[in-house]
């Protein structure tokens, strides 16, 4: 049997010019869906195509169109994205430092801090979602990761939900807390931005901004956003008590607040 020509797959990715992949490298295939406030029909489909083209999609194809009952139309569109991303130059702001597990954290406290570390947390403003903050703070934790209450050397105070920023800060001062943990789940009309910004302002007004670590978390929170808003760190989905503890403990040593 003759051996074949070694024509290899074309899948040699140029990471400085990354493009979407449908079934061939750099085909650019993207799926989109959206509603336009215009009545269904060929003109509406054309509007959808024009929009897709403006977004940089070649050969946009409206594969589904549906009247929504009020003169608006819904579209599903496929097209070939012409933009590329330089993946090699991406730098993401992450919470720094290694993550220690619970036992390592406890040992770290014993060895490096030698006192009880206090953290006060709450779901603030009108936000009634506690599952997130409970996941971080309460004994039983989440997904098999114990919460801060379980950590020896950490005094974790969870004030629950709908806690006004003022009350949270007051309690933190009263408890001489090392860190404040704010949870925000409702993000509609950017209510979380307003609420978090207000938190930072109040901390500054109370003169504690430089004394207490300020952390926030929630499904739409990123470390980057948190820093932009003036927090020390932010935690999104899939964060657990050990991420928070590791960060706080290392920072306390770093900032010489031991």
């Amino acid at each position, binding site marked *: 049997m003759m051996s074949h020509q070694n024509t290899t797959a074309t899948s040699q990715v140029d990471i400085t010019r990354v493009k979407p992949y449908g079934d061939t490298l750099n085909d650019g295939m993207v799926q989109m869906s959206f509603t336009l406030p215009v009545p269904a029909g060929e003109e509406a489909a054309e509007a959808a195509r024009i929009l897709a083209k403006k977004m940089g999609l070649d050969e946009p194809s409206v594969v589904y169109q*549906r009247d*929504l009952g009020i003169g608006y139309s819904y579209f599903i569109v496929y097209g070939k994205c012409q933009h590329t991303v330089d993946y090699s130059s991406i730098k993401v702001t992450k919470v720094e430092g290694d993550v220690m597990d619970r036992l390592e954290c406890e040992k770290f406290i014993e060895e490096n801090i030698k006192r009880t570390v206090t953290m006060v947390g709450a779901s603030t403003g009108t936000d009634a979602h506690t599952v997130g903050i409970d996941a971080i703070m309460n004994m039983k934790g989440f997904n098999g990761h114990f919460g801060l209450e379980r950590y020896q050397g950490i005094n974790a105070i969870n004030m629950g939900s709908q806690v006004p920023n003022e009350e949270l800060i007051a309690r933190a001062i009263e408890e001489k807390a090392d860190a404040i943990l704010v949870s925000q789940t409702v993000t509609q009309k950017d*209510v979380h931005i307003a609420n978090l910004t207000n938190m930072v302002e109040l901390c500054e007004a109370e003169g504690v901004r430089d004394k207490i670590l300020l952390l926030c978390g929630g499904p739409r929170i990123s470390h980057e956003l948190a820093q932009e808003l003036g927090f020390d760190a932010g935690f999104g989905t899939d964060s657990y008590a050990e991420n928070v503890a590791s960060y706080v403990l290392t920072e306390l040593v770093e900032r010489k607040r031991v």
Partner: protein
Amino acid sequence: MTSKLNLDPKVIDSARSSAKRIAESMQEFIDRHTTVSTERTILRLLGIDGVDDVDRPLPNVIVDAIKEAGGLPRGVAYWIGNAIVQTGKSPQDIAEAVGRGELDLTKLEQGSAEDAAKAVEPYVDESLGIIRAQTAKRNEYLATIGEGRRPYLYVIVATGNIYEDVIQAQAAARQGADIIAVIRTTAQSLLDYVPYGATTEGFGGTYATQENFRIMRKALDEVGEEVGRYIRLCNYSSGLCMAEIAAMGALERLDVMLNDALYGILFRDINMQRTIVDQYFSRVIIGYCGIIFNSGEDNYLTTDDAVEAAHTVLASQLMNEQFAVLANIPEEQMGLGHAFEIDPETENGFLLELSQAQMAKEIFPNASLKYMPPTKFMTGNIFRGHIQDALFNLVAVWTGQSLQLLGMLTEALHTPHLHDRMLSIENAKYIFNNARDIGEEVEFKKDGMIQKRAQKVLKDAEELLAQIEKDGLFPTIEAGKFAAVKRPFNGGKGLDGVCKRDELYFNPFIGKMLGGAK
């Protein structure tokens, strides 16, 4: 209906009897108390509406004044009745005078309770007349244009702007929705007053105001006539203004209302004494006017595990049923809540959901069960979410649920976009039609996993209720037995709005409403 689950009727009876005794013991507590909100409700039903010059609703102005003066234990009905006797004015005129600071009700000469009661009676009757007219109107619609088939397709609108809500609601109705719920703005349930007028600013929902109710009712009547299907309107009354909002709902012909003291206690940290008292009056109103109330057991499974805590849902439903019985609510108006919240990774989880949903149907065969979609295990993966919702819809049509709160593929992301709702409605219509008679056609294996699961949940609920009967409901909540949330008897919001009634206290509506003169 023979039980497909082979449930033991004796266990059901035993659980139900415990629930009945629990509710009765709570009723003793209720009958000794009133609250600021209950009293404001009476004012509203007497025709008092509007705001004062600093935008405080008149019912609040009056109740606060009476409370300040220590007159609350006697109840506002007495004070207004007495004022009518003394001034000859109508309740609204009296209220406006109080609002302007021109009148102090507790400073008027105090006649007998009988006279006061007689003085308010025409206003009570007028109010009941308005409500009855609304009920008649609903019945007329149902008789003429008809309604959608059950499970009703129930969707929410939540733009924060009542006029945007109208657009989205009408779109949903045209797409096939049967019930439109207008979600309230975050934390309205914590306000100790009901905002006034049409509103266009809310977070994650729109203020529940009487004017907003009216605007939406009109819009839904119009679109209902257009699509040839009565479109039901739903709003939320749980919270600090439970009874007031129920009264507004009765007056503006809402059809469905979220109404559950336990929800308020557990998920809104509302004081248990306060809300249990408010719940009673709110349910009397709801029973009277033909609204279907929705209880909030589904929420338990968002903080607790849906497999482990299934019996707490059933126990709570049984209590909510008995609370409703005491408020004279017909079974058909009992929208007891439950939910499809088992982790989708669970092997045979679908069978467990099926079992639990069928169990609810068999234990409450005539209730209008409200079935809630997957929420907790919805993720940003909208494609998988859409099939989670499809399985939920399949269980619903299979087990004959009544009010199907449609799951949204974007549940983990945002309140529904216009087309999210369309896709959900399409999902439900497809599944309901394509598997329409599956419940008729399919049976569960004797002593199989499905039957045994339901039997176990029932047994556990029976035991829990027996325990609650022993311990008392309030201590049970304090111990965190529901939703894994603990709430103290004297904690939470609204406690200072509770007071003991005195001997002259009367609520002129309760008796007449319980008479049930529809």
